[in-house]
Protein backbone atom coordinates (compact mmCIF):
# COMPACT_ATOMS: atom_id res chain seq x y z
CA UNK A 1 0.00 0.00 0.00
CA UNK A 2 2.59 2.54 1.10
CA UNK A 3 4.85 1.97 -1.91
CA UNK A 4 2.12 3.36 -4.19
CA UNK A 5 0.48 5.63 -1.63
CA UNK A 6 2.05 8.74 -3.11
CA UNK A 7 2.45 7.54 -6.71
CA UNK A 8 -0.38 9.77 -7.97
CA UNK A 9 1.20 12.86 -6.45
CA UNK A 10 4.62 12.07 -7.88
CA UNK A 11 3.23 11.67 -11.40
CA UNK A 12 1.33 14.92 -10.90
CA UNK A 13 4.64 16.61 -10.13
CA UNK A 14 6.23 15.10 -13.25
CA UNK A 15 3.35 16.44 -15.38
CA UNK A 16 3.52 19.80 -13.62
CA UNK A 17 7.24 20.12 -14.28
CA UNK A 18 6.79 19.08 -17.92
CA UNK A 19 4.30 21.93 -18.32
CA UNK A 20 6.54 24.33 -16.41
CA UNK A 21 9.50 23.41 -18.62
CA UNK A 22 7.41 24.06 -21.75
CA UNK A 23 6.56 27.52 -20.43
CA UNK A 24 10.07 28.62 -19.44
CA UNK A 25 12.30 26.84 -21.98
CA UNK A 26 10.36 27.42 -25.21
CA UNK A 27 10.04 30.70 -27.04
CA UNK A 28 6.96 29.83 -29.09
CA UNK A 29 3.85 31.43 -27.60
CA UNK A 30 1.44 28.65 -28.62
CA UNK A 31 3.79 26.09 -27.09
CA UNK A 32 3.81 28.13 -23.90
CA UNK A 33 0.00 28.09 -23.77
CA UNK A 34 -0.01 24.32 -24.33
CA UNK A 35 2.49 24.07 -21.48
CA UNK A 36 0.16 26.05 -19.24
CA UNK A 37 -2.65 23.64 -20.18
CA UNK A 38 -0.49 20.65 -19.21
CA UNK A 39 0.34 22.33 -15.90
CA UNK A 40 -3.33 23.10 -15.31
CA UNK A 41 -4.45 19.53 -15.98
CA UNK A 42 -1.82 18.26 -13.55
CA UNK A 43 -3.38 20.43 -10.85
CA UNK A 44 -6.79 18.97 -11.71
CA UNK A 45 -5.38 15.46 -11.27
CA UNK A 46 -3.85 16.49 -7.93
CA UNK A 47 -7.22 17.70 -6.61
CA UNK A 48 -9.20 14.72 -7.90
CA UNK A 49 -6.60 12.30 -6.47
CA UNK A 50 -7.03 13.92 -3.07
CA UNK A 51 -10.80 13.55 -3.28
CA UNK A 52 -10.71 9.80 -3.93
CA UNK A 53 -11.77 7.62 -1.01
CA UNK A 54 -10.77 3.95 -1.06
CA UNK A 55 -13.81 1.75 -1.75
CA UNK A 56 -15.94 4.81 -2.42
CA UNK A 57 -18.11 5.53 -5.42
CA UNK A 58 -19.07 8.62 -7.40
CA UNK A 59 -20.84 11.19 -5.19
CA UNK A 60 -24.37 10.61 -6.49
CA UNK A 61 -26.47 9.56 -3.52
CA UNK A 62 -28.33 6.30 -4.13
CA UNK A 63 -29.53 3.37 -2.08
CA UNK A 64 -27.09 0.59 -1.36
CA UNK A 65 -24.02 2.81 -1.15
CA UNK A 66 -22.68 4.41 1.99
CA UNK A 67 -19.18 5.47 1.06
CA UNK A 68 -18.68 8.23 -1.50
CA UNK A 69 -15.65 10.09 -2.76
CA UNK A 70 -15.27 13.71 -1.66
CA UNK A 71 -17.52 15.88 -3.89
CA UNK A 72 -15.85 19.20 -3.04
CA UNK A 73 -12.71 18.87 -5.23
CA UNK A 74 -14.96 17.74 -8.08
CA UNK A 75 -16.97 20.97 -7.87
CA UNK A 76 -13.85 23.14 -7.81
CA UNK A 77 -12.25 21.36 -10.76
CA UNK A 78 -15.45 21.15 -12.82
CA UNK A 79 -15.69 24.92 -12.99
CA UNK A 80 -11.91 25.30 -13.32
CA UNK A 81 -11.86 23.21 -16.51
CA UNK A 82 -14.38 25.42 -18.30
CA UNK A 83 -12.70 28.58 -17.04
CA UNK A 84 -9.39 27.07 -18.20
CA UNK A 85 -10.55 26.65 -21.78
CA UNK A 86 -11.99 30.17 -21.82
CA UNK A 87 -8.73 31.71 -20.59
CA UNK A 88 -6.66 29.50 -22.92
CA UNK A 89 -8.78 30.79 -25.81
CA UNK A 90 -8.03 34.34 -24.69
CA UNK A 91 -4.31 33.54 -24.69
CA UNK A 92 -4.52 31.98 -28.15
CA UNK A 93 -6.43 35.01 -29.42
CA UNK A 94 -3.59 37.22 -28.15
CA UNK A 95 -1.09 34.96 -29.95
CA UNK A 96 -3.07 35.37 -33.19
CA UNK A 97 -3.02 39.15 -32.84
CA UNK A 98 0.71 39.14 -32.05
CA UNK A 99 1.30 37.06 -35.20
CA UNK A 100 -0.64 39.63 -37.22
CA UNK A 101 1.23 42.55 -35.71
CA UNK A 102 4.78 41.13 -35.65
CA UNK A 103 4.63 38.36 -38.26
CA UNK A 104 5.97 35.84 -35.73
CA UNK A 105 5.07 34.20 -32.43
CA UNK A 106 8.65 33.43 -31.38
CA UNK A 107 9.50 35.39 -28.27
CA UNK A 108 13.09 36.18 -29.32
CA UNK A 109 12.01 37.67 -32.65
CA UNK A 110 9.28 39.73 -30.99
CA UNK A 111 11.79 41.17 -28.51
CA UNK A 112 14.20 41.88 -31.39
CA UNK A 113 11.49 43.66 -33.39
CA UNK A 114 10.65 45.74 -30.31
CA UNK A 115 14.24 46.82 -29.69
CA UNK A 116 14.77 47.72 -33.36
CA UNK A 117 11.80 50.04 -33.56
Amino acid at each position, binding site marked *: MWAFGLYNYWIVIVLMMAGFYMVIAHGNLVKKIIGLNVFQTSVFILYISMGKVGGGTAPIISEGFTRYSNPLPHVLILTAI*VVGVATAALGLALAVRIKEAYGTIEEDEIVKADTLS
Partner: protein
Amino acid sequence: MTHNPVLRVMAKLMIPFILLFALYVQFHGDFGPGGGFQAGVIFGAGLILYGLVFGVETALKVFSPTILRIGIAVGVLLYATVGLAGIALNGKYLNYNVLAHDPVHGQHLGILLVELGVFITVASVMMTIFFAFAGRKS
Protein backbone atom coordinates in the same frame (compact mmCIF):
# COMPACT_ATOMS: atom_id res chain seq x y z
CA MET B 1 -13.99 19.86 -45.64
CA THR B 2 -17.27 21.36 -46.84
CA HIS B 3 -17.47 19.11 -49.92
CA ASN B 4 -16.85 15.74 -48.36
CA PRO B 5 -20.16 13.83 -48.68
CA VAL B 6 -19.37 11.32 -45.91
CA LEU B 7 -18.71 14.09 -43.43
CA ARG B 8 -21.78 16.04 -44.50
CA VAL B 9 -24.17 13.09 -44.18
CA MET B 10 -22.71 11.85 -40.90
CA ALA B 11 -22.71 15.35 -39.41
CA LYS B 12 -26.34 15.82 -40.43
CA LEU B 13 -27.22 12.55 -38.73
CA MET B 14 -25.24 13.20 -35.57
CA ILE B 15 -25.78 16.90 -34.81
CA PRO B 16 -29.45 16.58 -33.72
CA PHE B 17 -28.51 13.83 -31.29
CA ILE B 18 -25.56 15.80 -29.93
CA LEU B 19 -27.84 18.78 -29.25
CA LEU B 20 -30.51 16.53 -27.73
CA PHE B 21 -27.88 14.85 -25.55
CA ALA B 22 -26.73 18.28 -24.37
CA LEU B 23 -30.28 19.07 -23.25
CA TYR B 24 -30.56 15.67 -21.54
CA VAL B 25 -27.30 16.32 -19.68
CA GLN B 26 -28.60 19.76 -18.73
CA PHE B 27 -31.95 18.68 -17.29
CA HIS B 28 -30.88 15.31 -15.90
CA GLY B 29 -27.91 16.91 -14.13
CA ASP B 30 -29.68 16.79 -10.77
CA PHE B 31 -29.90 13.01 -10.82
CA GLY B 32 -26.90 11.81 -12.80
CA PRO B 33 -23.62 13.25 -13.93
CA GLY B 34 -24.18 16.50 -15.76
CA GLY B 35 -25.10 20.13 -15.35
CA GLY B 36 -24.84 23.48 -17.01
CA PHE B 37 -21.11 23.48 -17.69
CA GLN B 38 -21.05 20.08 -19.36
CA ALA B 39 -24.27 20.65 -21.30
CA GLY B 40 -23.11 24.05 -22.51
CA VAL B 41 -19.84 22.62 -23.75
CA ILE B 42 -21.55 19.72 -25.53
CA PHE B 43 -24.10 22.03 -27.15
CA GLY B 44 -21.30 24.33 -28.25
CA ALA B 45 -19.31 21.37 -29.58
CA GLY B 46 -22.33 20.21 -31.61
CA LEU B 47 -22.61 23.57 -33.34
CA ILE B 48 -18.83 23.79 -33.74
CA LEU B 49 -19.06 20.48 -35.64
CA TYR B 50 -21.74 22.07 -37.80
CA GLY B 51 -19.48 25.04 -38.43
CA LEU B 52 -16.50 22.80 -39.26
CA VAL B 53 -18.41 20.72 -41.81
CA PHE B 54 -20.76 23.26 -43.39
CA GLY B 55 -18.65 26.40 -43.06
CA VAL B 56 -18.62 29.16 -40.49
CA GLU B 57 -20.86 31.48 -42.55
CA THR B 58 -23.64 28.86 -42.59
CA ALA B 59 -23.28 28.26 -38.87
CA LEU B 60 -23.43 32.00 -38.19
CA LYS B 61 -26.78 32.08 -39.98
CA VAL B 62 -28.11 29.65 -37.34
CA PHE B 63 -26.62 31.55 -34.41
CA SER B 64 -25.89 35.08 -35.57
CA PRO B 65 -23.21 37.13 -33.77
CA THR B 66 -25.95 39.26 -32.23
CA ILE B 67 -27.68 36.24 -30.70
CA LEU B 68 -24.35 34.95 -29.40
CA ARG B 69 -23.48 38.31 -27.83
CA ILE B 70 -26.87 38.50 -26.17
CA GLY B 71 -26.57 34.87 -25.04
CA ILE B 72 -23.22 35.49 -23.34
CA ALA B 73 -24.74 38.25 -21.22
CA VAL B 74 -28.18 36.70 -20.64
CA GLY B 75 -26.75 33.62 -18.92
CA VAL B 76 -24.80 35.61 -16.31
CA LEU B 77 -27.72 38.00 -15.83
CA LEU B 78 -30.14 35.09 -15.30
CA TYR B 79 -27.81 33.69 -12.64
CA ALA B 80 -27.51 37.04 -10.87
CA THR B 81 -31.26 37.67 -11.15
CA VAL B 82 -32.04 34.39 -9.38
CA GLY B 83 -29.87 35.68 -6.55
CA LEU B 84 -31.73 39.01 -6.49
CA ALA B 85 -35.08 37.17 -6.51
CA GLY B 86 -33.98 35.60 -3.23
CA ILE B 87 -33.52 39.08 -1.73
CA ALA B 88 -36.85 40.27 -3.16
CA LEU B 89 -38.60 37.36 -1.44
CA ASN B 90 -37.11 38.27 1.96
CA GLY B 91 -34.31 35.79 1.78
CA LYS B 92 -30.58 36.10 1.22
CA TYR B 93 -28.67 36.47 -2.04
CA LEU B 94 -28.57 33.11 -3.85
CA ASN B 95 -30.58 31.39 -1.13
CA TYR B 96 -33.13 29.36 -3.07
CA ASN B 97 -35.22 28.19 -0.09
CA VAL B 98 -37.58 31.17 -0.43
CA LEU B 99 -38.22 30.76 -4.16
CA ALA B 100 -41.14 28.34 -3.60
CA HIS B 101 -43.47 27.47 -0.73
CA ASP B 102 -41.42 24.43 0.16
CA PRO B 103 -37.64 24.91 0.70
CA VAL B 104 -36.82 21.71 -1.22
CA HIS B 105 -38.93 22.85 -4.18
CA GLY B 106 -37.27 26.25 -3.96
CA GLN B 107 -33.86 24.58 -4.12
CA HIS B 108 -34.98 22.56 -7.15
CA LEU B 109 -36.20 25.68 -8.95
CA GLY B 110 -33.13 27.70 -8.01
CA ILE B 111 -30.67 25.02 -9.14
CA LEU B 112 -32.59 24.57 -12.41
CA LEU B 113 -32.54 28.30 -13.23
CA VAL B 114 -28.94 28.80 -12.20
CA GLU B 115 -27.80 25.83 -14.27
CA LEU B 116 -29.79 27.21 -17.20
CA GLY B 117 -27.92 30.50 -16.88
CA VAL B 118 -24.58 28.67 -16.81
CA PHE B 119 -25.66 26.64 -19.85
CA ILE B 120 -26.57 29.71 -21.92
CA THR B 121 -23.34 31.55 -21.11
CA VAL B 122 -21.03 28.56 -21.58
CA ALA B 123 -22.64 27.46 -24.87
CA SER B 124 -22.57 31.01 -26.27
CA VAL B 125 -18.96 31.61 -25.21
CA MET B 126 -17.75 28.32 -26.69
CA MET B 127 -19.44 29.08 -30.03
CA THR B 128 -18.21 32.68 -29.98
CA ILE B 129 -14.62 31.64 -29.37
CA PHE B 130 -14.67 29.11 -32.19
CA PHE B 131 -16.39 31.42 -34.68
CA ALA B 132 -13.99 34.23 -33.81
CA PHE B 133 -10.97 32.00 -34.52
CA ALA B 134 -12.44 30.32 -37.60
CA GLY B 135 -13.80 33.55 -39.04
CA ARG B 136 -10.31 35.03 -38.91
CA LYS B 137 -8.98 32.39 -41.29
CA SER B 138 -10.72 33.31 -44.54
